[in-house]
């Protein structure tokens, strides 16, 4: 981004030479004229709602009534509510387990596709499909796959003789959490896989040959050649994925609506239930903001990391 003094001088010289250069040709004026619409838009529709959300969370506001200032009462009420802590626990389990599965599975996928074979590009395109198809629509298919009576998983398990009773995938508290983790992993794994593949493709095969000749084992080659190259990609991809898994809404909303008995409520779906379905805007905003400490740390870390890149 830095412009050397030489080029600035050259620009201003050129500016004087052609007399019709207007104010708009000055670097800072041009920049700010270009930036203004976008910056104003983001201030109005991201920064302002963010601050306004904090303001709402300090009120006992309901839909269609003005509400009054209650300080931290909403946050205190949540901290004393067992459901809130269950939601916190669900969100952390969901994020940690799904991220681990997506990371290891994605790495495995990348290593598999990185081999030489015919139809590689087609395979890559097909494997990325879960990530590009609208989440709600693919989750509907999963809902049918997990149907209590007609689940194809149950049918297969029964007919191979592995079980005799149907699993209630979305009706049992533990299985429901497992189910939303499976679907999140299914959707996010190719994102890891394909981005890590791009990282792997920058490694020269010569390196592996040389290491093999020097007697390095497969594991050693992985940790000393592969890992260092893909580490920056892995860090960025993981941080992105953690941010959006932690704040996931669509998937649990469609698949379980947070049930059974709050077993799969995440912060986002719980905030939606309280703020939108029950109309307690202030309380809902407080639940959404409860994501901020963990999320804020991640956002700051990733922003700094991206800036450094």
């Amino acid at each position: 981004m830095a412009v050397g003094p030489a080029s600035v001088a050259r620009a201003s010289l050129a500016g004087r030479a052609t007399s019709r250069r207007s104010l708009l040709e000055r670097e800072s004026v041009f920049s700010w004229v270009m930036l203004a619409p976008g910056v104003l838009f983001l201030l109005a529709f991201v920064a302002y709602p963010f601050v306004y959300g904090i303001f709402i969370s300090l009120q006992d506001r309901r839909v269609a009534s003005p509400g009054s200032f209650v300080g931290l009462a909403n946050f205190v009420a949540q901290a004393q509510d067992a459901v809130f802590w269950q939601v916190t626990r669900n969100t952390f389990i969901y994020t940690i387990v799904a991220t681990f599965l997506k990371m290891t599975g994605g790495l495995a996928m990348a290593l598999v596709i990185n081999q030489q074979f015919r139809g590689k590009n087609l395979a890559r395109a097909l494997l990325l499909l879960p990530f590009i198809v609208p989440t709600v629509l693919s989750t509907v298919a999963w809902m049918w796959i997990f149907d209590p009576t007609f689940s194809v998983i149950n049918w297969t398990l029964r007919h191979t003789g592995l079980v005799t009773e149907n699993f209630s995938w979305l009706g049992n508290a533990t299985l429901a959490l497992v189910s939303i983790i499976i679907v999140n992993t299914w959707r996010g794994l190719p994102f890891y896989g394909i981005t890590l593949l791009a990282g792997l493709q920058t490694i020269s095969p010569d390196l592996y040959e040389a290491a093999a000749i020097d007697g390095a084992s497969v594991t050693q080659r992985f940790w000393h050649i592969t890992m260092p190259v893909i580490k920056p990609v892995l860090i960025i991809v993981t941080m992105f994925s953690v941010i959006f898994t932690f704040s996931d809404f669509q998937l649990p909303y469609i698949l379980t609506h947070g049930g059974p008995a709050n077993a799969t409520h995440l912060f986002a779906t719980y905030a939606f239930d309280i703020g939108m379905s029950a109309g307690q805007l202030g309380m809902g905003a407080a639940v959404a903001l409860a994501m901020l400490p963990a999320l804020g740390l991640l956002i700051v870390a990733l922003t700094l990391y991206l800036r450094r890149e």
Partner: protein
Amino acid sequence: MVGGKGLGARTLRLYLPLGFFLVAMLFPFYWMAITSIKPNRELYSQKIMPLVVHQPTLTHYIELFDGTNFLTWTYNTMLVAVVTTVVSLVLGVMLGYPLARMNFPGAAIVAIGVAATYLVPQPLLFIPMADIINRLDLGNTLSAVMLTYPTLLIPFCAWLLMGYFKSVPRELEEAARIDGATRFQAMLRVVLPLCTPGLLSAGIFAFTLAQNEFLYALIFLTKSEVRTVPVGAITELIRGDVFYWGQLMAAALLGSIPVAIIYSFFVDYYVAGLTAGSVKN
């Protein structure tokens, strides 16, 4: 590479795991497709083998088109996706260009601000946003989503494009300016054409993200005529405890096709965007 060269080793290292990934990733789409053409008799039977269709039927598609506003939802989804993609691309260029190529006071703060807004997830904003849209009296209009989707797309486009803008040599722009082009003309005629791959990547991504959006559409669009495909399907093909599975799958399949077609034409740009920007999911 080094290691076993035999067919056995290759099966173990390549064909088996590749087959596993392909089946795992594509099975839900297969399931979606065959469910949409199964007659109800096959859908709701525990006896009939469910993995294939025995007597395919288009009933669910006919009912979807006759009984719901599916075509309107599709039109709404497309219209919103196209408008928001264009708006976000234009504003993304206007943000990304100075940030990537100019030296001016406040640049660092704007760059950090754009990166941060890119990372702020929707669930943090939807409650205040609902109130703002109400106060603007935009409930149940497509303007509500056209206004809010760019909040997700602009920072992404700007961030992705910055990388491409930075890669164009400064000399090209300076040469154009010495030849009498204004800064704006130099951008439009010299730098932007060289960044066509970046514009394509950003555009395809923005389009996909716009099609994928659900939360704002769910909150702002409560009348059938203004709904998008995901919201329409979820709210009108599931009534209470009754799930119209055949129609749901038909809607899901048809709703996925536009994205899938665009994606199939531009896979490489999509992957380039994915790796350059890393992306919201």
